[in-house]
């Protein structure tokens, strides 16, 4: 029925082994290639060199990671709040949903490359434009997931609640909202992977600090090793956020984890 919603996130460490192996071997191949070919580190630095750069520049990376993380969290919190509030409004007012949905779809078609400089132009180099861009990028997957999720409620459960004398609000709280949770988490995980990237992109376009600025400066001074060091940090950030949502999902969707007798 809900085939587009992953049934269970990875369970146990054993499942992660193939992934770890493939990542490690990719790095090994990369390292070996760089050493054997003698390619210049200005073209392609070896993973070991990138690692060295992370250690050497840890203070710089840390100081610039904090603003990126702030923008990501603030943007995400904003987008989550708006997406949820709006989803409730849309669920109770189907007409409004039909009127507004095209606008949201259009908001997703705007190329970030064009929008980001404009937002920076309007809101300056501080936190605001980054928060807005993160929110813009992460908002839609969550909104769609929630709206779809409400719609996927078992009609028989709704009929039952109506027969019990439930109000529309009670039906929303007790049936539609919980029904939407698996969908919501699917949307959340898509959003979270966009969030850090959006923050970095916004910084890249204009900011005082942040991983995006580190990348920009490193690129301008021909330091691909430092660019990659910042990339590693940003990927790690995304992975950590991803892990947090997976953990949250396991708590909230515990009922999907329990053994089925059928």
């Amino acid at each position: 029925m809900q085939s587009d919603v992953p049934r269970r996130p990875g369970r146990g460490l054993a499942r992660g082994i193939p992934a770890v192996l493939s990542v490690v071997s990719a790095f090994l191949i990369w390292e070996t290639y760089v050493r054997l070919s003698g390619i210049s580190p200005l073209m392609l630095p070896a993973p070991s060199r990138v690692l060295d750069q992370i250690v050497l520049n840890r203070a710089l990376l840390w100081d610039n990671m904090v603003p990126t993380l702030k923008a990501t969290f603030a943007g995400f919190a904003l987008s989550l709040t708006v997406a949820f509030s709006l989803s409730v409004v849309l669920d109770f007012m189907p007409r409004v949903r039909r009127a507004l949905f095209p606008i949201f779809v259009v908001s997703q078609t705007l190329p970030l490359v064009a929008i980001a400089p404009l937002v920076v132009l309007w809101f300056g180099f501080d936190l605001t434009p980054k928060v807005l861009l993160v929110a813009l990028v992460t908002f839609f997957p969550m909104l769609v997931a929630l709206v779809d999720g409400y719609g996927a409620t078992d009609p028989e459960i709704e009929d039952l609640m109506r027969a019990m004398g439930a109000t529309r609000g009670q039906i929303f709280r007790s049936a539609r909202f919980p029904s939407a949770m698996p969908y919501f988490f699917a949307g959340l995980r898509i959003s979270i992977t966009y969030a850090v990237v959006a923050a970095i992109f916004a910084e890249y376009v204009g900011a005082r600090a942040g991983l995006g600025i580190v990348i920009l400066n490193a690129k301008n001074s021909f330091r691909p090793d430092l660019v990659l060091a910042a990339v590693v940090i940003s990927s790690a950030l995304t992975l950590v956020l991803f892990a947090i949502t997976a953990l949250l999902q396991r708590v909230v969707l515990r009922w999907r984890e329990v053994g089925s007798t059928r």
Partner: protein
Amino acid sequence: MSLLDIQNVSVTFGATAILDEISLHVAKGEFVSILGPSGAGKSTIFRLLTGAARHDSGKITYNGQPLATKHHGFGFMPQRDALMPWRRIIDNLTLGLEVQGIHRKNARAQVTPLLADFGLDGFARHYPSQLSGGMRQRAALLRTIAQNRPVQLLDEPFGALDALTRTQMQAWFEMRWRAARWTTLLVTHDVREAVALSDRIYVLSRRPARVIAEVHVPAPRPRMGRRVSAEAHAVEAQLLEILLNQTGETL
């Protein structure tokens, strides 16, 4: 006087006639079954009673009063169990009471003593997916009963079960019913079940459904878990003949 009275009720969905001048009644404490082929319109009758559908003509009265649109005198058990997979069994059972505005804690206190009778002792904190089909049906039944409504509407409560479990559940249900005497309207397509449980049985034709027979079941109770009495046998034979004959008509 009958508690629930359905008089000449017709329903059409679009161009399709579903119910054709259906009349039936249920007295207080009575167990009445609606027996008919799949797709006849049995569930539709319940949808009228729970306010999920409207009839086009005819009259439904409850306690002598026309049935209000927002009437909640019925405990309704839908055809599939409709348990909420994200709620633990205990929280599924209290759903009806919560809807009535009873605090979750008090609702639990009301339901918990009933768990044992419904064979759900020790399963209160399980999720529906962890229960067998029979247990899920009992849970759905208890969720219905726990609402303390004066009339129970049960839509094929044992229809989804395997034959053995179904027979066990019917026997168990007969026992519970004999103890509690809920006013019950049961929908089924199972002749055996109707005869085993009912005081009276209405037989519906194929769609558009008409009442083609009303049969009293004089057999002594309990009827399950012992040899089928001669009276019950006679009623079963009579019902089968009615059902087969009316199928023959349409061929």
